[in-house]
């Protein structure tokens, strides 16, 4: 079942969006949730799973669209931005949303967006430019980092740890799987649980027993999956 969360301050628009989305999902439609403000959305977003679809209006009672995009970073759900202001589309895509629908929208356009969300990220789409996550402290807010500052991503149980150049770490509930498709050719999944940025690779070490390891310029040692070693060599050109 696909759950929906509609973050929209205009009730009539939210009603319309939900109707079209449920029609598109048909029997797969699960629960619908609504949030009219940033605070409400921030409360509900963590409950979403990667099977959820998040509809985001980038203008909520005057709140900054940039703040609203942080909701996307907090959730593994596929995010569709539905906005009156098309000038924010590029920014939204840079943050990894799967689609951007301009208001006023048609039923067909919503169905198309839902289809894209279900299919996952389009491999031909340009890579994201920012990656967001919460700081390590419990009460830390969500922040964004440009990809150039991301050294590696490490998969944990139900979240992903983003290792930044300075050694700081951000946590996101997006899966390593989802992130891998969004990051572009500078990043490579060298292990089931690790993605690294080529710019931060220091040494490629081979050990006895076909064990391999990358030492990053940050000092971190990252194991290379045995079955991926040849692909990693090709990627690095060694």
């Amino acid at each position, binding site marked *: 079942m696909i759950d929906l969360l509609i973050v929209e*301050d*205009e*009730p*009539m*628009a939210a*009603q*319309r969006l939900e109707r079209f989305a449920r029609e598109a999902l048909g029997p797969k439609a699960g629960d619908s949730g609504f949030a*009219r*403000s*940033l*605070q409400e959305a921030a409360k509900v977003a963590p409950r979403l799973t990667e099977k959820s679809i998040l509809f985001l209006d980038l*203008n*909520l*009672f*005057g*709140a*900054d669209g940039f*703040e609203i995009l942080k909701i996307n970073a907090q959730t593994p759900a596929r995010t569709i931005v539905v906005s*009156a*202001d*098309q000038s924010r589309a590029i920014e939204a895509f840079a943050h990894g949303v799967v689609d951007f629908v*301009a*208001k*006023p*929208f048609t039923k067909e356009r919503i169905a198309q967006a839902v289809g894209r969300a279900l299919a996952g990220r389009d491999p031909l789409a340009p890579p994201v430019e920012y990656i967001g996550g919460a700081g390590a402290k419990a009460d830390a807010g969500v922040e964004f980092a440009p990809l150039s500052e991301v050294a590696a991503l490490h998969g944990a149980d139900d979240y992903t740890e983003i290792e930044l150049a300075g050694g700081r770490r951000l946590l996101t509930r997006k899966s390593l799987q989802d992130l891998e498709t969004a990051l572009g050719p500078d990043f490579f999944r060298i292990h089931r649980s690790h993605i690294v940025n080529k710019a931060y690779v220091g040494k490629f070490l081979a050990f006895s027993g076909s064990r391999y390891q990358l030492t990053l310029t940050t000092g971190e040692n990252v194991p290379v999956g045995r079955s991926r070693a040849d692909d990693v060599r090709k990627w690095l050109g060694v």
Partner: protein
Amino acid sequence: MVRLILTLIALALCASAAAQDAPPQYHLFDKVAVMAGDNPDYARPEFDDRGWERFAPVDIEPQGRLIWVRAHIDGERLTALQAGRPLGFFLYALASREVYFNGVSIGAAGAPGATPAEEIPGALDQVFYIPDRLIRPGDNVFAVRMSSHHLGAHVHNPVHAFHIAPYRDSASARLRVYVPAIAAGGAIALGAIYFFGLFAANRKNITSLALGLVALAALAQLGAETWRAFDRYDYPLHMTRLYAILAFAFLTGAALAAYSCLRFAPRLAKFILPAAALLSLAGVVLAPGYDHKTAIAFLAFLLGALAAALAGLVAKRPGAAYAALGFGALLAAAFFAPWSFLDQIYYLGIAALIVALFILQIRLLETERRARQEADLRAIRLRHELLNRQIQPHFLMNTLTTLAEWIESDPRTGVKMIDSLGGEMRLLYEMSEKSRVSFSEEIELCRRHLEVMSLRAAAEFTLSVNEPAADFPCPPAILLTLIENAFTHNEYRDDAVFEIRAAETGGRVAIVCRTPMRRAENTQNGAGAGLAYIRARLAEAFDEDWSMNAGPENGFWATTISWTAR
């Protein structure tokens, strides 16, 4: 060579000797003998007038009586004056007179008489030719029979001239005095045409009207003044001329002071103008002689004009320094050269003033043209901003999205929303063309907007407005902007009442707009653009004569805007 130099020296000596021996140009009489009454013997040269009273000619008093005046001059003195030229007896007086030279009548101006009925008024300026054949060695006697019954008012010094000089027509003699003033008249006439033209082109240009009046009144004064040179009128008309000069001088001064006040100290006008007028009138009543009356009538206002220009100087008004300098110079001229002030300096001064004001006016017009251009640009920008706000995606696209939903879910409400939106757009379009609309139109616009917003939020937003006593003009869309701002900064999820209270008291309009406060935590401080629009509109309509302040008030955000009604 030496001979040539000697000849030149001799010639130079002769010339200087000739200069020393040059004939005198005129003869003034120190004292003349005066006797009231009438006797044909008084005309005879040999009559013994030693018992008569002696006066300076200027003090001869013919008003209300018939008198004889006898003046003696030596034959040699007359021959020296003559130097081959015809001689004239210059007797200008506000009286009728008959003139006898050595017992022979040499002319008359009117016919003197003992009573008003017997007298026939004669010309004011008259030169009597002195026949050569009557001049004799020894004592020569001028005997004048004169009376003045037709002036209508008592004047000081009714005898204006009483002297002997080579004969010249009275008009040409008089004209010579007025040549500079008449030349200045051309500039003044041009000034009148120019400034009245400016006023005709723009009726709001009151300063041009004032300057036009200065020029016209000065021109009329010049006309009355020089009338004496162009027309040898009979003496009773002289009073009319003096009254006319006095009145025009008063008007010239008043217009000049009004101009200076309007231009440099509009707020002080209500003090300066009455004070100057009072001083001027006091001078007219109290000063002796019409020359003094006329001078003071004008100078009092000139003093007022100077005061206004000095006030303008303190307030740093453009041009005030030049004006103060000009007015001051004219005042100084009146004090340091009073004898030629009214006849010459006055008109030259006014002409110089007009030329200077021409230059000032041209600079001012250029400044105004630029200001107008900026105002036009601002008006276009504001109009653009107003219309642009309505087609902004956030407003238009969200409204259309909601509209689509209403049409599908509840078509009747959908049509209602189309009506409201259409009404709002139409009103806005009409208003965008104007810099002022009526308060009731503005309220109608706010209501339309709240209808649209109600349907968008599926809540009821209402407007509570008091009924002001009368409708009044108001800059377009300023209250709408306050309401729009409220929607940007609040989360209106449920019904809400917006309040507008307007009052006009003592020419001051005050509007209070209260919008309910339902604060969203993360709102941006984006009110700047909306408030900047309101400020620009208020400045466009009321220059600096407005105020706006805002603050929380019992759960409302209250914005008070006030201005002075025009």
